[in-house]
């Protein structure tokens, strides 16, 4: 069977499985739709949350980014895992005890204010939309690369599948589908990484092979450590040293922080921990989530360095003389057809050469690093097929989770809690499904007409989450004094500072976006952390100058601080 047929087969089987699961576990009530009835076992919830968290960008692009920037890529590796420590220790046990459905629910109740709820709803919807725009594009890209259909057709197919199981199944259907998607995605990611590790270093675990000595052509240890080889190649070819990177330390610090605190403030992540039965399950579920994410996130940097060495050696040859194009490995030829690798023979010697100086003749897209691994490791066609299914699983699972936040925000936070408080459970469910549908259409639109600013907008999403929702939630739990005036002023201050800074450097005056012009040398990607500090400071000052909070809110804060009684979750 050729790769094409095999890919159709594997992708078809996985899609059928997702839809089958969705039909079996579809939601019947708003509680099932929003929080899966609150009865998901913690390990399964961890797996589902991991799938929700790891997007098409994590699966397809992250290893490529790390591969090209080395140490600088650590901001994503630490930033997108470290946030879970904050979630587990500072947020999820208390929010689970609080026992309602959404982040705006908590902010609205804790700060006894519709305006606070509205600010939170706007943040939640905005953050989720910026994310989902990228996901649908990911679906389209995977379809076009592996199945040779138009990107647009790929987006339509992806929209139909997500529509079917997110709208029908709600959180319950999504959770169980995501468990299956996690398995598909992790298997697809690990198989090529393990084989590449064995081929290059003789280690089964990429995490160990990463630090080991390279094997030579005869399969014996060459005496050169992979990392030393990589540093040597990088400096010889005019790149900055792989293990050191080129970003300023202060910027690395702030970006890492913004991503960590941003992760802990993302509504589609927080809401996942409302689905488990008890407070202690919420705590352990955060641990399981990080474990399942860590399997991939500790492999990503390893894969990045294997592919980097493999790629440079395939192009430049062992003696750095350049490999004649006619003798290039198959995968280079295959990916040249897609335009993701380009070769321009500047010195007309018929040889390829890759460097960071004027001798460079190659243009290599970062996404190659993951997508081409099965071919680099000489793996059979079914692994390539698996890769397509894995990329789709990553994109679909994240889209579904985000759609749910959008539909919940509209039907529950905006309609039920704000505009039409008297609607029935059934009506609310109908509006939730309608909002999901509208969300998919919007996402599909952005998938087909991708805005050029997706990457910039994602920086805003994390910045907003870090500078608005994270401080409001943690102060709501850890302070018995923080009042609505303080919280709202803090959120607005953090929000407007962060947005203004990012909008200025990304849209208004992109030419000025360089470290000399940045405040304290912090790039727009890292500014959310400063926004967070501003939020805390403003909130505390305003709180000191305004009226104390009502006694019943103090009682509520005290009651969420210990687990007992969370089992009687609030139905409403």
């Amino acid at each position, binding site marked *: 069977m050729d790769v094409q047929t095999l890919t159709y087969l594997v992708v078809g089987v996985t899609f059928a499985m997702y839809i089958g699961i969705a039909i079996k576990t579809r939601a019947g009530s708003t509680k099932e739709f929003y929080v899966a009835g609150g009865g998901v076992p913690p390990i399964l919830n961890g797996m589902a949350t991991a799938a929700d968290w790891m997007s098409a960008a994590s699966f397809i692009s992250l290893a490529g980014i*790390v591969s090209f920037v080395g*140490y600088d*890529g*650590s901001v994503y*590796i*630490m930033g997108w*895992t*470290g946030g*879970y*420590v*904050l979630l*587990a*220790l*500072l947020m999820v*046990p208390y929010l689970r005890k609080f026992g309602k459905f959404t982040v705006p629910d908590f902010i609205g109740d804790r700060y006894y204010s519709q305006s606070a709820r509205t600010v939170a709803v706007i943040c939640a919807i905005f953050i989720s939309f910026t994310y989902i725009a990228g996901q649908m594009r990911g679906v389209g890209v995977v379809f076009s690369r592996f199945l040779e259909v138009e990107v647009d057709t790929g987006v339509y197919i992806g929209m139909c599948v997500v529509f079917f199981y997110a709208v029908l199944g709600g959180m319950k259907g999504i959770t169980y589908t995501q468990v299956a998607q996690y398995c598909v995605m992790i298997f697809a990611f690990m198989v090529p990484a393990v084989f590449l590790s064995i081929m290059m270093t003789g280690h089964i675990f990429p*995490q*160990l092979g*990463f*630090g*080991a*000595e390279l094997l030579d052509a005869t399969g014996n240890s060459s005496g050169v*450590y*992979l*990392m030393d080889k990589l540093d040597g190649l990088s400096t010889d070819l005019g790149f900055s040293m792989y*293990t*050191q990177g080129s970003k300023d*330390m202060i910027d*690395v*610090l702030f970006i*890492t*922080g913004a991503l*960590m605190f941003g992760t802990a403030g993302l509504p589609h992540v927080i809401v996942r921990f409302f689905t488990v039965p*008890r*407070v*202690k399950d919420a*705590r*352990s579920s*955060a*641990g399981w989530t*990080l*474990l399942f994410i*860590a399997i991939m*996130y*500790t492999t990503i*940097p390893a894969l990045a360095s294997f592919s980097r060495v493999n790629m440079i050696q395939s192009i430049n040859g062992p003696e750095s003389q350049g490999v004649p194009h006619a003798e290039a490995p198959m995968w280079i030829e295959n990916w040249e057809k897609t335009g993701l690798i380009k070769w321009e023979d500047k010195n007309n010697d018929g040889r390829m050469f890759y460097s960071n100086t004027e001798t460079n003749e190659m243009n290599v897209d970062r996404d190659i690093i993951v997508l081409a691994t099965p071919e680099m490791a000489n793996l059979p066609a079914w692994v390539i097929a698996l890769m397509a299914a894995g990329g789709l699983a990553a994109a679909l699972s994240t889209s579904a989770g985000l759609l749910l936040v959008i539909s919940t925000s509209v039907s529950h936070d905006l309609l039920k809690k704000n505009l039409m408080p008297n609607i029935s459970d059934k009506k609310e469910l109908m509006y939730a499904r309608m909002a999901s549908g509208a969300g998919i259409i919007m996402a599909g639109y952005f998938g087909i007409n991708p805005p050029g600013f997706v990457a910039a907008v994602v920086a805003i999403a994390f910045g907003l989450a870090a500078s608005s929702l994270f401080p409001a939630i943690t102060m709501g739990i850890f302070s018995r004094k923080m009042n609505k005036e303080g919280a709202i002023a803090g959120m607005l201050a953090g929000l407007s500072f962060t947005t203004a800074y990012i909008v200025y450097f990304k849209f208004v005056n992109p030419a000025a976006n360089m470290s000399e012009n940045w405040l304290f040398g912090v790039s727009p990607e890292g500014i959310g952390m400063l926004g967070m500090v501003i939020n805390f400071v403003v909130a505390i000052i305003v709180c000191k100058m305004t009226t104390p909070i009502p006694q019943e809110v103090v009682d509520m804060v*005290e009651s969420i*601080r*210990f*687990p*007992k*009684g*969370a*089992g009687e979750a609030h139905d409403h």
Partner: protein
Amino acid sequence: MSFEDAEKAKGYWNENLKLVIKLLAIWAFVSFGCGVLLVDILNQFSFMGFKLGFWFAQQGSIYVFLILIFVYVKKSNTLDKKYGVDE
């Protein structure tokens, strides 16, 4: 109120805070400390074939994060039992 008295409630919360602060200090030390601020110093040492600072930034910090969460799960469950507020 599930605690016997206000004194107990305060004791529980203080112990909980102490635990969280301790664990978050380690969290900040391995990520912001070893992975970023001290990276150049730690890179002088070699660990399992890596420069130590680089290893912390791309591997070690994640392992420590994992341990921190599971330690927290275990200790906070014990704390709940001690004060009789477990489920």
